[in-house]
């Protein structure tokens, strides 16, 4: 993919993100605001249970809001005739699709980055580990969610989002029965239980990324052959 292609994708994604910039900004600030509230309430020394609860809340509600916002925005974009104004220029369908995906994925990545920052801050404060696999797994899940929202209805994307949230919740409960609290602990437990070695974790992450790339490629092929829904 050439620089020109990337420039076009970034141009379109930038315009899409600009539309919901205020909402996105508020969402990105939210984990930090919760951090500040927790620290202020507990005089700078929060308990590990409180930290786990806050991180968990940030993860579930934040990602759900980002997923909801992204899928609604993508659904609206699909229905808006603005699509034809972009595709009437020298923009390929794959480029447009990647721009849509990027506009959904960037807020997700941004949110996870802010969440990771707050989680890492607490981990340092409470001297507990914060595994990298947590971030990788969340990014991959978000990518798949966004890709699914592109080709099916918004309702379908919401069903997937709900199913994903339910699955993670079930895993958390399972993790709780093993005496492990908080999302960071959960992902660490999953990595340890299922792979047992850093190399295996890296391989699993690579598998997820290859799967995501496959989904994107398939999506581009399908989209190139589809009629735009302009009625």
């Amino acid at each position, binding site marked *: 993919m050439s620089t*020109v292609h990337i*420039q*076009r994708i970034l*141009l*379109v994604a930038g*315009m*899409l993100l*600009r*539309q919901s910039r205020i909402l996105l900004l508020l969402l990105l600030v939210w984990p930090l605001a919760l951090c500040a509230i927790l620290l202020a309430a507990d005089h700078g020394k929060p308990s590990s249970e409180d930290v786990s609860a806050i991180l968990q809340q940030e993860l579930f509600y934040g990602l759900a809001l980002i997923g909801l916002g992204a899928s609604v925005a993508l659904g609206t974009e699909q229905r*808006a*005739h*603005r699509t*034809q*104004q*972009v*595709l*009437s*220029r*020298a*923009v*390929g369908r794959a480029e447009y699709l990647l721009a849509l995906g990027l506009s959904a994925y960037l807020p997700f990545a941004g949110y996870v980055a802010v969440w990771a920052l707050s989680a890492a801050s607490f981990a340092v404060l409470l001297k507990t580990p914060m595994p990298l696999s947590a971030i990788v797994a969340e990014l991959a899940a978000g990518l798949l969610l966004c890709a699914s929202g592109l080709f099916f209805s918004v309702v379908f994307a919401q069903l997937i989002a709900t199913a994903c949230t339910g699955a993670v919740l079930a895993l958390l409960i399972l993790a709780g029965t093993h005496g492990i609290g908080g999302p960071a602990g959960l992902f660490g437990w999953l990595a340890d239980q299922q792979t047992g070695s850093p190399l295996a974790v890296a391989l699993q992450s690579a598998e997820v990324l290859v799967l995501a790339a496959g989904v994107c490629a398939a999506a581009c092929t399908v989209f190139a*052959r589809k*009629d*735009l829904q*302009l009625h």
Partner: protein
Amino acid sequence: MAALLRFDQITKRYGRQVALDSLTLTVEAGEIFGFVGPNGAGKSTAIRIAMGFLHASAGRGELLGVPFAQARAARAGVGYVPDAPVFFASTPLEAVLFAGRLNSEDAGQTDADLRTRALELLRWLDLPVSFSGWRAAGKADARKLSRGQQQRLAIAQALVSHPRLLVLDEPTSALDPPGVSLVREALVRSRAEGTAVFFSSHQLQEVETLCDRAAFLAAGKLVAMGSMAELLREGDCVSITVRRLQPEDPFVRLHASTLSQAHSIAVSGDLVFVVPVHEQQCFLEQAWLAGAELVEVVRQRRRLQELFEMNRRASESGYVSGAQSDNPTDELRERP
């Protein structure tokens, strides 16, 4: 010279419904081509196939010499204005620059060129260029412009890359008369700059005034196509103006009642009859015998509105479902 836009037996089906049936037409460089037809005739479908938004069920087509499906780079040489443009959150200038930047690599425009061109177009199309003060900030959003301004902004976006072909889908729908005039001026000026224009419209007066050629579509089929001179060629009636006759004269009463196609209009004592060409000799002889003074005999020019109505009625009666002749206008003229 190669056609800028070519439809070759293009058909589009939605299930069992045929939206477009073997459409064949070409748009040549430097012309303004009108695409006319009633609602649901298939005009927008044809335009969307040309722009690559829809895929044809059968047939082939080319945009600037490139097959529709592979015309990504070729679209840098095409400006498109949809019937209802929708914009991103941006000022009008940013909206035009955004459209230009998407094409800039293929159109070979630098950012400075784009900005100059965008400002020129915004002024030309009477669109706001700059906003100052926080109170004006809300008006800076292209999404909040009036419908007419949005339509003109879409035209500015389409023209920013100096396209060879401008494609417009109902560009003047829902515009007020000054807005229509501005769009009309934009189309004429685009042609003067060497851009061919292909547009669909319900504004028959506009098509008649602007177009070099036009095509009529009804129920997905092309039913008439040709230059405006061909389409508006002399009709089958003559208007005969006579004087020295009174409305109560037997001749006038006779022809008012027996010639169903004739009608008379009193203009400063003159009477104007419109009679079929094949009856004019008989009519003139009788008028002469009745003591009338002949003022003028004029072959009537057919208006585009009449042709449109003929096409619409033909499509409603299902007549157009037959084979298409080489010159569909001739086919029309032979209809009862």
